[in-house]
């Protein structure tokens, strides 16, 4: 149905935009092991994105590539967290922590979806994002417990990233209807488990969530196609070649 398609699009866009960003690290990571690790994570996410976009497109006869390459910015449905820039490695890790813990909870719950396609995608994805979660957690611990410099950077990165966490748990009419039907997971239902895991990581890292005057909460709006100033240039680069050759196959 178009509603399930829209839901799959949200999930697929989250995965694809994050994969696109992580792909930028390849050949630029702090050590070769991280070129490999971030590449693996990006590959997993592209895999999720392809399944989800493929499914989202079936309702309207569009392919995964039609959706990835031929939608303009207001047609994208990813949450803002995923389009936040890589920043330094600490910022990438802070974004990975929030994203992977959220996705782990999401896919874990979505395995129970009454929609067999979504349930199957989630069942595969949950194992992979569990690894992503572990990767992010280990790095948060290392950076927080490493040097003074790394601890400072990790704290700044948390502060810069956390404004975008709130949006992940926004419900709207669409997800409310779909979750009533057992198809989708109600975002707000994930906030508790998310918070619990994050708290445990931060306790171990001896870090705290941002407080004070620069502890903002971004309004969000990605699910309705409103985006931050980072998505436009990202899409321009991602889509440029495909759009230069309409109808071509690669």
């Amino acid at each position, binding site marked *: 149905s178009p509603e399930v398609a829209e839901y799959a699009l949200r999930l697929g866009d989250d995965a694809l935009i994050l994969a696109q960003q992580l*792909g930028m690290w390849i050949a630029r990571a702090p050590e*070769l092991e991280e*070129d490999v690790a971030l590449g693996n994570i990006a590959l997993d996410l592209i895999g999720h994105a392809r399944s989800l976009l493929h499914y989202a497109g079936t309702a309207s006869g569009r392919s*995964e*590539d039609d959706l990835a390459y031929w939608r303009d910015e207001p047609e994208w449905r990813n949450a803002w967290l995923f389009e936040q820039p890589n920043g330094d490695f600490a910022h990438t890790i802070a974004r990975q922590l929030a994203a992977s813990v959220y996705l782990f909870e999401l896919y874990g719950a979505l395995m129970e979806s009454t929609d067999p396609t979504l349930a199957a995608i989630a069942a595969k994805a949950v194992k992979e994002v569990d690894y992503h979660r572990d990767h992010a957690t280990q790095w948060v611990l*290392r950076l927080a417990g*490493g040097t003074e410099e*790394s601890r400072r950077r990790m704290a700044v990165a948390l502060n810069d990233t956390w404004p975008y966490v709130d949006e992940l748990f926004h419900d709207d009419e669409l997800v409310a209807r779909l979750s009533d039907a057992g198809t989708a997971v109600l975002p707000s239902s994930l906030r508790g488990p998310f918070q619990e895991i994050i708290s445990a990581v931060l306790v171990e890292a001896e870090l705290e969530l941002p407080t004070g005057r620069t502890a903002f909460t971004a309004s969000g709006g990605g699910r309705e196609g409103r985006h931050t100033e980072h998505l436009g240039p990202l899409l321009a680069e991602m889509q440029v070649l495909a759009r230069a050759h309409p109808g071509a196959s690669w």
Partner: protein
Amino acid sequence: EAGQALFDELIARDSRIEPRDWMPEGYRKTLIRQISQHAHSEIIGMQPESNWITRAPSLKRKAILMAKVQDEAGHGLYLYSAAQTLGITREEMMDQLITGRARYSSIFNYLTPTWADMGAIGWLVDGAAICNQVPLCRCSYGPYGRAMVRICKEESFHQRQGFEILLELMQGTEEQREMAQDAVNRWYWPSLMMFGPPDDESPNSAQSMAWNIKRFSNDELRQRFVGMLVPQSEVLGVTLPDPALRWNEETGQYDMSEIDWDEFNEVLAGRGPANAERIRRRREAHDDGAWVREAAAAYAAKQAARQAEVA
């Protein structure tokens, strides 16, 4: 001495030398140079391809390309490990690379202006690498030979992917076909240069062959490569940019035009399209990542100290 005698015997029997075995200093140095150069080539070789990850024209191609570049990081890791068994650290090797004291394959000093370069690199550069590397699986130094076995498997996969990219382009629009032919035109000669200078100007080869590091001469490998390309180019429908290229029944070899070694030497001397870019970017990644590596080391040290306390 006894060490030398054992070494000579192992070489004579075409057996493997292992890290703890005695080996001549020249053998060790040659291998360190060759393996680290090979590792550096994998690492620097990630750059021309990573250039297209963000712009890959389909999600499938994006995934394949990411996986490939990531494999290269993995190959770099195996190879640095193999070199480390000879008594050099990864830090020393990385330092040699970013200060320009170590070489990497000159082919990666070329640029990738179009998507078709992803195909041409796979087909031609990985193809040439395989011709070079398959015999290295039998290299007398154990860790290197074993690393090569693993690497060669993935490389041939990469070569096929490159071939597929070109095939898709050659079956596509007029613009796509032109893009493919243009990339082949640009990469063909540099890929032939990957085998190194002609045999009569390759002074180090004899010793490497005596040590069972190298198994075939540069020109032999180059011929083998061209022999592989010709039928594949026909399947693709691309023209190899050498008007003189043809099978010579008499010599049992391909006739080909003279290679422009001046160009090769220019690039080797640091005057290629991307020498500066390649080193700059590697240095920046290394420098930008320093605080992360320091943090990881400090954290590991603290954890170790904590465990020692507990124990």
